[in-house]
């Protein structure tokens, strides 16, 4: 369970999050929709303690993220998968090394076990035979798949994805959205996705939250939002 309680954040006087509160249930696919610059990435970074709120608190499974030291935060983050908007793979490592990195850091798996794990995880994200490629040799969609693989390789039960479909064509957007949904269901992950891709969001989300100017405009199941009478929501989802 993820709880966000009255979180506010400003940068140099510009209000990005304005007293935002909501809860995310275990195992749910929760999508944060908003226009570019709405504060989606900032919100997601708050959830893993990469940014501290000016006011308010965030809890992940009852742990107050804001109260943790950086060292405790590092431990917490091992249990959370995070897919960055541009995947943020290490560009000095090939795909295999990128995926092996968290395993070498945090597990005692043998070389053979690591290699098997990487093989199976690449199968899961539908990418095979790219182990020796460097990130610069991959397409945007492939990078995101590798990023997704890295995010779940430590068997995280919480998965955060920042704009997984941005920069992809409609078909690849659809594929990666489906992939995230399937993986989330299969591993029973609590999944939080930020997006401005309305169509795919409405399709795969259990619940959708729309933010604008740092405030929550709407929050509910896709069906409920489609029936909404709020003019901005209407404009956004239709």
């Amino acid at each position, binding site marked *: 369970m993820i709880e966000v309680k009255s979180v506010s954040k400003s940068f140099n006087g510009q209000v990005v999050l304005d007293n935002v509160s909501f809860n995310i249930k275990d195992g749910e696919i929760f999508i944060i929709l908003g226009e570019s610059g709405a504060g989606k990435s900032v919100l997601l970074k708050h959830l893993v303690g990469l940014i501290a709120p000016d006011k308010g608190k965030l809890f992940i499974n009852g742990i107050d993220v804001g109260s943790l030291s950086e060292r405790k935060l590092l431990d917490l983050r091992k249990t959370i998968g995070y897919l*960055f908007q*541009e995947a943020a793979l*290490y*560009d000095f490592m090939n795909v295999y090394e990128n995926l092996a990195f*968290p395993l070498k*850091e*945090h597990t005692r798996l043998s070389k053979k076990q690591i290699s098997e794990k990487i093989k199976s995880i690449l199968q899961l994200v539908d990418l095979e035979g790219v182990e020796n490629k460097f990130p610069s040799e991959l397409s945007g969609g492939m990078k995101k798949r590798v990023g997704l693989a890295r995010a779940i390789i430590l068997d995280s039960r919480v998965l955060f994805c920042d704009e997984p479909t941005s920069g992809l064509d409609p078909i690849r957007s659809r594929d990666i959205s489906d992939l995230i949904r399937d993986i989330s269901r299969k591993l029973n992950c609590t999944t939080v996705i930020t997006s401005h891709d309305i169509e795919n969001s409405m399709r795969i989300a259990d619940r959708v939250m729309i933010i604008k100017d740092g405030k929550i405009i709407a929050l509910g199941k896709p069906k409920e939002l489609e029936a909404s009478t709020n003019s901005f929501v209407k404009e956004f989802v239709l």
Partner: protein
Amino acid sequence: MLKFLTNYIFGVLANLGEVINFILEVLGNVLRGKIRLAEILKQIYEQGLQSVGIVILVSLASGIVLALQGVVVLSRFGAKEYISSLVALSLVRELSPVFTALVFSGKAGARITAELGSMSVNDQVLATRTLGVNPIEYLVVPRMIGCFLVLPILTVISEVAGIFGGYLIGVYEANISGVFYINQTFKAIRFVDFYSGFSKVFFFSIIISWVCCFQGFKTKGGSLGVGKYTTQAVALSYIWVLVANAILTKIILSIWG
């Protein structure tokens, strides 16, 4: 106006706080034994290999120029045989440590900032944190320790190359016997001469790696930012190396004379 001034002072202090915090965190990791040997070896190899050629070239040229000028000046006093001492002492006490540090800033230092900077703007530093790994420990400590070990080695290489440059001129231009030149060189350099120059290098290595790693971590603004912060890092290392050199030289001379 007053508000502008207080804002400015506040900004400078905040930045200073960040800079000091950064090095304290590095030290904390080193003291807790968070040292990655494989990463350090990689850094030593990369930083050393990248700089060694140009260090040799610069030092060789400096040795040659010192000897050429030395021949002219010393001949006026009929003391041509002392070229070897002039070359060796200039290099060992002052020129090699400083030149090596400056060349190293421009090569390895720039590389460090550009690498860390592009990792910062591509979220790779943040990604390290989301993977539960401390980026200071993983990315900064090996670079700083690598630098701390490489710069002294490069300095010794620079001294040897410079002395060899002087030797070429001494022997082939000034017709001093080679054996005599080498003998004079070893006679001239006393331990204090060597250490008074060499001890400065450790300070320089900390300054360069501190400045360059910090600037890399602060980089923002895409590829333009990487360029901006990299040139800034090199300029700042130059300035601080030269300022530190003046201060250290004063201190060292008052201790060892």
